[in-house]
């Protein structure tokens, strides 16, 4: 594929995903098994804890690691298909990669870094530099084209890396933790700009991250993997409302339990019973935010509440509040204001009573 060609020109007919892959990698004890499709113009975030296989998945897509099984089809072309002995090396794949620490070539200026890809794709030096200058202008970096990477700030380097990846008009853009190397303030600005550029990208985009905020802001769809397998997939709204694993629940800041529902009552695995506002029968998840948990020095009276005695295991700062980790019949995180914490004189090891209103819990089928 040459640079001049648009991605959509090479794209399969409507309704067929641009990327259609089933990534399988066997590495001794670890196995990645990830079905993945991305439509033209769609941004998918691959989210997961460290060691879940995110980077492995990205490397197979980039051709830096071969598949053990499965297939990888991009824009109608088989790039890696062990079953059919098909393999396309990295340099012949229509991809662009933004690496975690950017990997801008230190001996080249920002302009020549961006021109590197177009030059390899058949443009002459003049054309390549012209295209690079256009991309850098689009990133708001016209004044910095002559700078070497070490003279750029983190945010600028990130944008040069993005321009370099996009300058070859890739059918698939891969971003590996694109904001992880930035400090908090720069990250905010850069995330907003990145969102615009990703929205403008006509090809498919895969964003690998462990930061849920990046995923929620930048992606149309989230794919969450743990131990090499998909545990949940869907829009940000679905996932934040109905997490299905502890990892996802922690990611979106919810307490999550699994149990068997009979009407409003849910029997959890360890014999603990929760009352919810929703009515179900069978296997369900039940979730509630830490802010729904109230702490009391003694057993609170009356009302249809869930109450139980618990012990404080830890206290951490969490935004403006304190997040209290509780042990007891169930493990729970509770958010309290510093004022309330002072009033209750909360210290680790202290016994308290926890209470959650049934109306503040949500139950949904686990099937």
């Amino acid at each position, binding site marked *: 594929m040459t640079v001049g060609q648009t991605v959509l020109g090479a794209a399969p007919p409507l309704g067929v995903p641009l990327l259609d892959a089933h990534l399988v990698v066997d590495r001794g004890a670890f196995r990645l098994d990830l079905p993945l499709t991305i439509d033209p113009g769609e941004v998918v975030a691959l989210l997961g804890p460290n060691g879940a296989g995110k980077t492995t998945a990205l490397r197979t897509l*980039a*051709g*830096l690691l071969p598949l053990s099984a499965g297939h990888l089809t991009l824009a109608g072309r088989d790039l890696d298909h062990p079953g059919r002995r098909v393999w396309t*090396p*990295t*340099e*012949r*794949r229509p*991809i*662009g*990669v933004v*690496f975690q620490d950017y*990997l801008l*070539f*230190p*001996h*080249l200026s920002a302009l020549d870094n961006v021109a*590197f*890809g177009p030059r*390899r*794709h058949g443009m002459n030096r003049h054309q390549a530099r012209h295209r690079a200058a256009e991309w850098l202008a689009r990133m708001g970096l016209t004044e910095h084209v002559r700078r070497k990477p070490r003279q750029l700030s983190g945010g600028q380097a990130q944008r040069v890396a993005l321009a*370099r*990846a996009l300058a*070859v008009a890739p059918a698939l853009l891969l971003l590996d933790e694109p904001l992880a190397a930035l400090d908090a303030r720069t990250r905010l600005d850069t995330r907003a700009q990145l969102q615009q550029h990703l929205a403008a990208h006509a090809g498919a985009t895969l964003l690998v991250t462990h930061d849920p905020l990046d995923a929620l802001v930048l992606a149309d769809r989230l794919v969450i993997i743990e131990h090499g397998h998909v545990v949940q997939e869907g829009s940000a709204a679905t996932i934040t409302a109905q997490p299905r694993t502890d990892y996802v629940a922690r990611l979106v800041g919810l307490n999550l339990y699994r149990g068997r529902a009979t009407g409003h009552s849910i029997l959890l695995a360890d014999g603990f019973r929760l009352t919810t506002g929703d009515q179900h029968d069978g296997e369900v998840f039940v979730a509630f935010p830490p802010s729904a948990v109230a702490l009391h020095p003694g057993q609170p009276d009356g009302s249809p509440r869930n109450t139980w005695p618990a012990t404080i295991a830890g206290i951490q700062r969490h935004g403006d509040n304190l997040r209290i980790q509780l042990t007891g019949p169930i493990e729970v995180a509770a958010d309290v204001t510093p004022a309330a914490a002072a009033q209750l004189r909360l210290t680790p090891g202290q016994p308290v009573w926890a209470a959650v209103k049934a109306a503040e819990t949500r139950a949904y089928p686990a099937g």
Partner: protein
Amino acid sequence: MPRTDGEVARPTTAVPPTRTRRTGRTPVALLLPAALGLLFLVLPLVGLLVRTPWATLPQRLTEPGVLTALRLSVQTATLATLLCLALGVPLAWLLARVQFPGRRVVRALVTVPLVLPPVVGGVALLLVFGRRGLIGSWLDETFGITLPFTTTAVVLAEAFVAMPFLIIAVEGALRGADTRYEEAAATLGAGRWTTFTHVTLPLVAPGIAAGAVLCWARALGEFGATITFAGNYPGRTQTMPIAVYLALETDLEAAIVLSLILLTVSVVILASLRDRWVSAP
């Protein structure tokens, strides 16, 4: 009470007690031999400077014999370095980047000329490239080329002895270089050769330059292998070190002047390495 705690804690954290002790006392048992060692290294150089005939130096320097030897030395050392670059950089890349059986053996073989007495190297070269040598006889019969006792032989002898310096420096630089830059180049459409020339080589350029300078310096000072394999023909194979050795028997002052030139070159090389490559990050 917390206030006094703070005041007690402050002096102990502010003054690292080990630091003053470390610089304060140096055992005489170490200091004395250290000073002697330094003296031993510097004194001969001082002796050279003291005995230099400064008054007649300009005249001495422009003597045809000196200039011829110097020119030949510089030419052969440069050619030997180019030969080492052409063969040594790929070999260093192979050692640093490709997993192959017997890699450790190859690395050991590469470093043999470092520890081998140069005279033995010269004899070995003679046995291979000599007129009746393994390759030399074939060269002689097929092309009518004889290598020993020619300027080419000087270059070969110098390259044989100096190549390990280049290979070790370049291999080290390649190992230190981040291979993910090469992956980044591949994702941008660069094949392996383009990646090597456009990314890998520029990344390790300082290492290659340092290796080339070391290699050149070693080639310039080469004596044993050269005189064994190439002999001593003024203008053809008589390099500076050989000229120094021969001058010692007839004209001490000439030997001193030639030595002074070599010393100057060495110091300049050392200084340039220090400033540009050794101390740079």
